[in-house]
């Protein structure tokens, strides 16, 4: 019994440390945003024939490093946009020249402009998630209080609020500490964590209710 409680304290301590470290990282260096949502630069290359994205990716990885995005523009599969944090004129020339070795096309490095792409604010990305999460949170809370009222309303209330909140904080902290890019996959992780924590709370409440 004592050993079990020690493990519990140990886990809580680790979670607390991770959350504190996460807060420190967020306050100092912030999140690592996915390139898609960062201030970045792009070049558009009109190749005028069907593009093999793998070949283009090989070139861009070599010239720009791994952190770059290549996307086909329009449905004809003959134009590509290459995006990276920064693209210098030298890199632009190298990309165009290397592409010219594979494909025959008119566009020259001189014709190619480097355009800036503005960053997207994290709040703009996720504000639409707040309301559905809040509504479902409240409804789940009401359900939990009604279903497990015999356990004690305050206890159920505290568990239903604290566990998912701590779970989400832990997730956010891990994302910040591990420098996992914040972007398209983050809401999915948040939903998954919410589902896991809510299932944990329900399971725990069921067990307590059965024991009573």
């Amino acid at each position: 019994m004592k050993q079990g409680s020690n493990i519990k304290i140990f886990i809580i301590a680790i979670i607390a440390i991770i959350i504190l470290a996460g807060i420190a990282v967020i306050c100092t260096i912030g999140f690592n945003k996915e390139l898609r949502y960062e201030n970045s630069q792009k070049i558009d290359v009109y190749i005028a024939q069907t593009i093999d994205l793998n070949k283009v990716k090989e070139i861009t990885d070599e010239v720009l490093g791994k952190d770059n995005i290549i996307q086909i523009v329009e449905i004809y599969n003959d134009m590509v946009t290459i995006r990276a944090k920064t693209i210098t004129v030298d890199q632009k020339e190298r990309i165009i020249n290397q592409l010219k070795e594979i494909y025959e096309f008119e566009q020259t490095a001189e014709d190619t402009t480097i355009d800036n792409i503005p960053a997207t604010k994290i709040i703009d990305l996720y504000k639409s998630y707040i309301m559905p999460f809040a509504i479902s949170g409240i409804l789940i809370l009401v359900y939990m209080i009604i279903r497990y009222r015999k356990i004690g309303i305050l206890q159920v209330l505290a568990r239903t609020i604290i566990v998912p909140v701590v779970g989400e904080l832990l997730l956010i902290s891990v994302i910040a500490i591990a420098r996992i890019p914040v972007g398209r996959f983050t809401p999915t992780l948040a939903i998954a964590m919410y589902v896991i924590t809510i299932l944990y709370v329900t399971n725990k409440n069921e067990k307590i209710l059965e024991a009573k």
Partner: protein
Amino acid sequence: MKKVKIITIILAIIAITLVAFGGVYIQTQNRMENKVKDYQLGKELEGERVIELKITSDSDDSENTETSEETDGTTEENTENAEATDSTAEEAESEQTTVIDAETLEKCKTVKKTIENRLKALGSQDYTISLNEQDGTIRVELPEDDSVDSYAYFLYATLNIDVKDEETEEELISDSMIKKATYSYGSDNSGAYQVYLELELNKDGQAKLKEIQNNYAILSTEVQEIEDAKEDEEESTDESSQGSETETSAEGETTENTEPTKKIAKLYIDGTEFDVDRIEGNKIRVMMGSKTSNTTNLNNYLAQAAEISMMENSGKYPISYEIVTNRYEFSNITKTDLMYFAIAIAIILLVILLVYCIIYKSAGILASFSFIGFVAIFSLLLRYTNVAISIEGIAAIIITILLNLKLNQELLSRTKKINMVKEAMKATYKNIFLMIIPIMILTIVFCFAKWSSLNSFGLIMFWGIILVAIYNYIVTRTLLMLREK
């Protein structure tokens, strides 16, 4: 007989699986075409419309802007050799950006907010808006659908409503004095409909309206009276100038038509004149078009009124923008990436099913077949219910599959213990579905979310939970009961 039934069910499962994952190919115009519907993917997985808006050059000139060059520390290299100089000069040229001042930036932020309001009002989902705070460029990413072109128009369209002196064209009530716009329609006894646009003025507007009402005729009835009086007066003047033969009648008319005391003010929407029907407090009711009993005309007037009120309510553009880029960009998550992911998940599932087969023997094998059938039907269901699969949607698919795995595992485990499928089924359903009630609440709320990513999660979970409940009751239970007998 028992074996025949089991084999029939298994063959049916295999057939469904082949249809779901292989497709049904039928020759259509000298080529084989898969008749099974394809998945509908969300914006992050399929592609999106990218629209870039820049401050128009007219606005640019009028604002205090300055040009800066980002040299990236290459200036020193410039002096060293001619080649380097050329290259760096070009670099500087390409990276030349027009930097906007703080005042313009605030205006750009207002435009960004207005764009967001407009997209919300238009019912657009899943948009991403970003503002380049250096040059004021706004980038909007929208899911590609039938409405995207009209959304693109509303991203830069401006609207100006004002009340002007008809003669001097002096602006009496400006667009900034309008607080809100709503629209409605009413019908008369003859069945003709009239569409109205109601403009609610702010305090300044209300004060101004009161002030001008003393000197100006704004209502269409008042304006009509004055215009009629003017016409009559003109006619009488013409007649009197023509000669004295109609002296008696002309005298009578001139006494009736005294010079109007009020001037005429008219309401203009983007330069087009509209009749004011009613003024009540701070509200001006404008007639949109004429009375009509034609449904097409009525719908056109309603659409026009809706468009005006949407643009008026979503905020103003303090600075004008123009579209510089409007194109479709495919997602950088390719179908091959998705295929690899699906294969990885399939391998994990096969391993789990293999474990089931080893632990639960024949029951495990039957449950595994049933599970494969479940995945196949689920994949068909997602395609035919037109659910757009987003990244969150993929998470919902995984959660549903895990839920089905858990249900099967619990069912097999209970069946092994009590050896009574019916009882095991009842207990498993009670346990699993009681446990996931909070997830069901979450699912229903997300189903109603306007944000398509969350909506995708909600809908997939919704269909998934329903399928888990029905499919296992019909197929898994039947297979296990046949084995039991």
